[in-house]
């Protein structure tokens, strides 16, 4: 969640509750959402790490609220996060978060992200093919494990194609 929150802050300053709402809106109900306590704890840690800075804003009838904005180091962390390929395949949710968050950051193009991720998956597929070829053919468990990983990758690649289809359709409508 750390980097997703940082990416959300790349849109502009926000306080904790706004960030939680933005996260829900961005990722939808199907995605397991953090509670507000987790969001505040994470923001505290990010501030301590120097990636964001907070400012207390006085409110007349309620307690002060703390608004956060990205520091330069925070922007760099978001850029590095967007830039590096995402681990495959079971943690692909992180790629989904990148894809969802990227337009708001103004720091990455979604089609570029998809192409980069596709290359990463294809290279992973190639490594798996080599592993499968190097592995003892009679070791069925090992072969199935590799085949399972390959099928995950195939599914991820099919899904990247779907993302690209949707994006192209959006572009044509604009």
């Amino acid at each position, binding site marked *: 969640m750390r980097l997703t929150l940082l990416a959300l802050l790349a849109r502009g300053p926000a306080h904790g509750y706004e960030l939680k709402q933005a996260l829900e809106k961005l990722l939808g109900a199907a995605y397991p959402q953090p509670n507000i306590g987790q969001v505040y704890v994470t923001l505290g840690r990010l501030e301590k790490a120097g990636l964001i800075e907070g400012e207390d804003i006085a409110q007349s009838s309620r307690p002060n609220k703390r608004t956060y904005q990205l520091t330069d180091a925070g922007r760099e962390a978001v850029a590095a996060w967007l830039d590096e390929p995402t681990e495959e395949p079971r943690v692909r949710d992180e790629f989904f978060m990148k894809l969802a968050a990227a337009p708001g950051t103004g720091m990455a193009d979604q089609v570029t992200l998809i*192409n980069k991720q596709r290359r990463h998956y*294809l290279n992973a597929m*190639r490594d798996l093919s080599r592993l*499968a070829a190097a592995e003892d053919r009679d070791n069925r468990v090992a072969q199935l494990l590799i085949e399972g990983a390959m099928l995950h990758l195939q599914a991820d690649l099919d899904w990247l194609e779907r993302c690209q289809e949707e994006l192209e359709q959006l572009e044509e409508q604009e």
Partner: protein
Amino acid sequence: MSREVRGARSADGEGIPAEAATPVVLAEDLVKMHRTEAGAPVKAVRGVDLRIERGEFVAITGPSGAGKSTLLHLLGGLHRPDRGRIWLEGERVDTYSEARWAVLRRRRIGIVFQFFNLISHLTVADNVELPALLAGSSPRQARAKRAELLDDLGLEGRENSTPGELSGGEQQRVALARALVNRSSLLLADEPAGSLDSKGTREVLRLLSRYHARGQTIVLVTHDARVASAADRVISLFDGRIVDDAALGGGSPADRPTGGVSGTLKLKG
């Protein structure tokens, strides 16, 4: 976009720089229209530029309807482009008549299809020897080439079977022998594992990789990433256009096949 460009082999097997080499395939601004059932023209291939060097193993991938089979068929002369130009080993071929394309496919372009397209009433041996005879080999030469290939492809003892008596994987191996019998400079494969089970798929991929390691130039079309990842370069086609062109393998020379392509050069393109 930078990617590795491999140089071709010169006569003595040494690598020569890519700029001096004639690509096996060069295509410029290819466009191909199809008509829908209602008669409306749809662009299946929309302005594709392509350069394939000798010894490359290239996969063209993308969703169904992206135009990848159409593109392969343009390269094999099975479809004619509505616009654009094609050179095969430096020779302009898009202007060729049907008859001259047929000669090219007999002598220099081998094609493997998803459903094998073997001649069902001929034996395995005859299916492989026929194109050699058509290309001008003597019956003795054709027999010798056929025997060598079937042996190489693990099909010895199957010479007198008919295609219907073979498994899908075996039939595709016969189709591969047929495509390679005239030492084609270009092997085109359209979903070569598309109707095979995972064992047959692995077998066909292993053989394609083996011929690639010996220097065969291969262009294959697939929607299967496992198949695509056997290639060294993957072109992603989307809606008739190339959206990505990536070298796989990260350029670790130790991982590259040696043997037949010892003259491999890596240049930043």
